[in-house]
């Protein structure tokens, strides 16, 4: 979830009023946001935005817009002009299979401030990273529009013969050199690296604007404080999210006092919105919800008028006709997938304190799973036998689960993307967890009698997932007097009090001392194993106290 930093002063100016920190915390949820931190010295607020479908909120102006509307401090109407003048982008057929779409607009204003510049860079980052899938589906560039002339050309360029001076460098580099040597090339070059031609934007005379989605040119693409004429383009693979993002940025500029100058894009191929588009472009369809559905879902008896008033507070204009509310989606939003999305805006527009809690009245029977019921019985017996219940992590290392246990570990499930080797395997047995406990507890008063009832998971080819999860009991006893006879006595007591019959079979499991371990059979199925821990295993764990261990599959004896 994106986090943004905003200047408190700017935020409050855009909203139109000031807040205490507490009051701000109370209002932020109505923009699906929460206050993450306040730097009182610099006046910077750290804000986390939770709704991943509302990228319009990921900037100072966007967040302020939502709150200002909610507080009734402003009304927003973004009717962008369609008079594009000479501002035209010509798309070349060569780019069709690489990165097919581009949208753009220009802005004119009184000179961008330092804070404004920071906010636009932050918006660009959040949009392209979080919403644009790390620039794969959306990349954005900002330029000084005084330095180039229309029409702008968007095309595919040969990576080895095309070169320019990228931002952050002083020499000309080919596109191929940029993706291997430039820091931004190393970060984003992989998006286009396998293509025959790379995306490239120039002006009418061939002056380079940028190599999207990687890097701008050092000259035209370097925006400075005080610049008053800017050109913004977005390239990508998904037209609706591209158009939405352009509208969001345009609304942000409009809110900070800029005039929005539209741009016409001419495609030589079809797009979801035709071959010629003037952007910013309003593409949203009206959304509808039945009044009765709203009341059913909210448990209320609201009138249509109350609902449209609530929506208006959310910045959404709505009309009711014949029990159906139709909304006009603001240009900066595209998150009305289902009527329930309108219901939520109505809920927020009313405010949470307008809904009183009501107890669910249906009668239902509470019940634990049979496995949980059985586990509790076994726990009671283990506690009666003097064992301390432990609880362990389910992920661990190859070293602990396999090497130290003196086993091959073929049944262990391996994580493909472990964060560290400490959490690389899923436990297939409780025994390593117990021995790990013993290895770190030599200073605890002896004897040690510990157990856990928990889940293990291991490979099982016959299952749809190729794995199986089971409920196991594992226990360990460590002390001078510990040996086969004492663990055998515990096993016997457990089965006696569970009123279950079992048989034993000799085993040559490498985790145990040969001749002092046994497999437990229940109804002809192997249900567990116990015995004296092999000193090889004890030594691997650095344990200097004799111990015996046992593990039983509770799902088998349930």
């Amino acid at each position, binding site marked *: *979830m994106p986090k943004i930093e905003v200047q408190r002063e700017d935020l409050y100016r855009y909203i139109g009023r000031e807040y205490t920190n507490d009051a701000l915390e109370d209002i932020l*949820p109505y923009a*699906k946001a929460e206050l993450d931190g306040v730097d009182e010295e610099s006046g910077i607020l750290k804000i986390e935005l*939770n709704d991943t*479908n509302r990228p319009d909120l990921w900037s100072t102006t966007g967040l302020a817009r939502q709150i200002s509307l909610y507080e009734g401090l402003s009304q927003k109407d973004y009717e962008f002009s369609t008079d594009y003048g000479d501002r035209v982008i010509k798309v070349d057929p060569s780019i069709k299979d690489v990165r097919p779409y581009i949208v753009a607009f220009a802005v004119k204003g009184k000179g961008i401030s330092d804070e404004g510049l920071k906010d636009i860079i932050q918006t660009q980052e959040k949009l392209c990273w979080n*919403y644009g*899938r790390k620039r794969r589906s959306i990349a954005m560039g900002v330029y000084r529009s005084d330095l180039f002339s229309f029409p702008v050309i968007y095309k595919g360029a040969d990576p080895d013969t095309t070169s320019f001076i990228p931002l952050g460098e002083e020499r000309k580099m080919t596109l191929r050199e940029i993706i291997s040597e430039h820091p931004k090339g190393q970060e984003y070059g992989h998006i286009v690296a396998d293509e025959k031609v790379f995306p490239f934007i120039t002006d009418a005379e061939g002056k380079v604007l940028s190599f999207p989605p990687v890097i701008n040119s050092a000259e035209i693409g370097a925006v400075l404080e005080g610049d008053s004429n800017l050109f913004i383009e977005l390239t990508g693979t998904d037209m609706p999210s591209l158009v939405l993002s352009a509208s969001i940025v345009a609304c942000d500029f409009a809110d900070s006092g800029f005039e929005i100058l539209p741009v016409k894009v001419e495609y030589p191929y079809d797009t979801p919105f035709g071959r010629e588009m003037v952007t910013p472009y309003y593409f949203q369809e009206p959304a509808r919800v039945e009044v009765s559905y709203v009341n*059913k*879902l*909210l448990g*209320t008896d609201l009138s249509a008028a109350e609902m449209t008033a609530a929506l208006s507070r959310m910045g959404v204009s709505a009309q009711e006709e014949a029990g159906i509310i139709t909304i006009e989606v603001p240009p900066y939003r595209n998150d009305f*997938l*289902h*009527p329930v999305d309108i219901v*939520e805006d109505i*809920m*927020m527009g009313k405010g*949470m304190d307008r809904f009183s*809690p*009501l*107890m*669910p*009245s*249906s009668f*239902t*029977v*509470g*019940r*634990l*799973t049979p496995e*949980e019921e059985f586990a509790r019985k076994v726990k009671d017996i283990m*506690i009666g036998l*003097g064992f*301390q*219940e*432990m*609880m*362990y*992590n*389910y*992920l661990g290392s190859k070293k602990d689960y396999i090497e130290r246990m003196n086993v091959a570990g073929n049944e262990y*499930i*391996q994580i*493909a*993307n472990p*964060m560290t080797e400490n*959490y690389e395997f899923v436990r297939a047995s409780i025994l390593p*967890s117990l021995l*790990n*406990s*013993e290895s770190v*507890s030599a200073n*605890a008063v002896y004897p*040690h*009698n510990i157990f856990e009832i928990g889940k293990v*998971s291991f490979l099982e080819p016959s299952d*749809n997932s*190729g*794995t199986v*999860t089971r409920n196991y009991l594992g226990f360990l006893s460590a002390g001078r007097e510990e040996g086969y006879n004492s663990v055998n006595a515990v096993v016997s007591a457990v089965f006696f009090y569970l009123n279950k019959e079992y048989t034993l079979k000799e085993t040559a499991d490498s985790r145990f001392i040969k001749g002092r371990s046994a497999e437990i059979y229940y109804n002809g199925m192997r249900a567990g194993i116990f015995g004296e821990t092999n000193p090889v295993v004890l030594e691997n764990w650095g344990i200097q106290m004799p111990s015996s261990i046992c593990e039983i599959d509770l799902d088998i004896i349930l």
Partner: protein
Amino acid sequence: MDIDVKSLHPLEIKLLRAVGDSDEITTQSIISLLSYKLGQCNQAFSWLSAKSYIKEVKRTARVYYEITERGREYGVKGVPEIRIIELIQKDGPKTMVEIASLLGLQNKDVGSAFGQLSKEKVLAMDSEKRVNIASGELPARITVLSGLLKRAMETDLLDEDSLSLEEKEVIRNNSKKRGAAGAPFKVIEREEVVYTLTEEGKKVKNFLIAEGVTGEEIGALTPEMLSSGSWKGKSFREYTINTPANRVLLGRRNPYGEYLQWVKDKLTSLGFEEFDGPLVENEFWNGDALFMPQFHSARDIHDVYYIKNPSHAKEIEQPYLDQVAATHENGWKTGSRGWGYRFDRDFTRRQVMRSQGTVLSAKQLHKAKIPGKYFGVARCFRYDQVDATHGADFYQTEGIVLGEDVNLRTLLGLLKMFAEEVAGAQEVKYVPGYFPFTEPSIEVHIKHPVLGWFELGGSGIFRPEVTKAMGIDVPVLAWGLGIDRMALMHLGLNDLRELFTPDIESVRLRRKN
């Protein structure tokens, strides 16, 4: 005078009562007065000194002789010299080898005994190399040694000061400091401390006598005393009740597990039925079925662990796969317009470690009763740096409520019930939240008396894209509670890693608030 008789051991009581006000108190005097063993003497001295009832007045080096195993054998069977003389007097001359075998002695012991006795003209070798009687008179050293052995058999130790000059000489010749196994006595050098009663000690002594405390009171009551009735007419030693209690190692629940059990019991008492599931899941149930778009940043909310092999499940249950795929692509029959992308049927089979308990809720939907209430306490896994607030695996407590009467207000009612019943909260606040699979979404915040406001849980009404794709037409509330945080508060901990600590002692000593 405030004297705590209960703090006095019978050994101390008897000693105090037995000594005179100005007596010199030594191990020797106490052994002869009270027949204490040496160890008992030392214990009594150390306890009484610690209480300042006796004080040290001087120290002297003393030599003792302790009888060895060999000495005891001599004491029982007689010293070898006597046995040899008696044998020959009775049965006539014998060779040394015959003597050794008849008396069960070592040849060398017979040899050295004969050598000495022959010098003293008690025995002599005859012409046939047999040992025969010469004077036959026992030398004084043997008589003295026999006497010493006899005394030592009773007392273990002989004090050098208690011996005559002649005895001293004999015992020195028959003892060793080290390697004394072959000799009848071992030399023990000890520093002897001399004590006398202090003023306080005298008062205690008089008190004991006045009160009639003898030190002969019954200590442990035995089955034998009960069966013989020998306890009758006797008094019992009184114990100090404030003696620090001994440590008991007991069988016990893990307090975190106990808390989770309490939560489960609470939820079942509120009419919820428990569900459970495997640790390994696939993208379908872990995200797709929850209407989280496959290639959208919403998916980044949960950075998941992938399974290396098998990387994909064999198949996804139908008709849910088709229904969910269509819902993602165009909304299917859910009333939604969908996400408008091509659903990836390979990606959806990709296997992951379950990253959210909501998976279990999604899987329960198609088999749920209506009306129905369900919950699960599910172990979940996240690709996160492990620290005080993040675990590689942790529990989530989640559930659903299905029914025709389910709506936003009953959701608030449910949250209020959780806040009051599970968290014991008085003040509750509801704020809009965001979860990819619920709309509307609500967070519930409660006020903790110390920590202030904090988020108890998240909830909402499942999106129809989630429920209808599972064949459910009634509204479904979905909720999750931040149980780990409450468990930490409950257990007085502030680090999530502590909940799964392997440290036995720390779990043994952990208690609940």
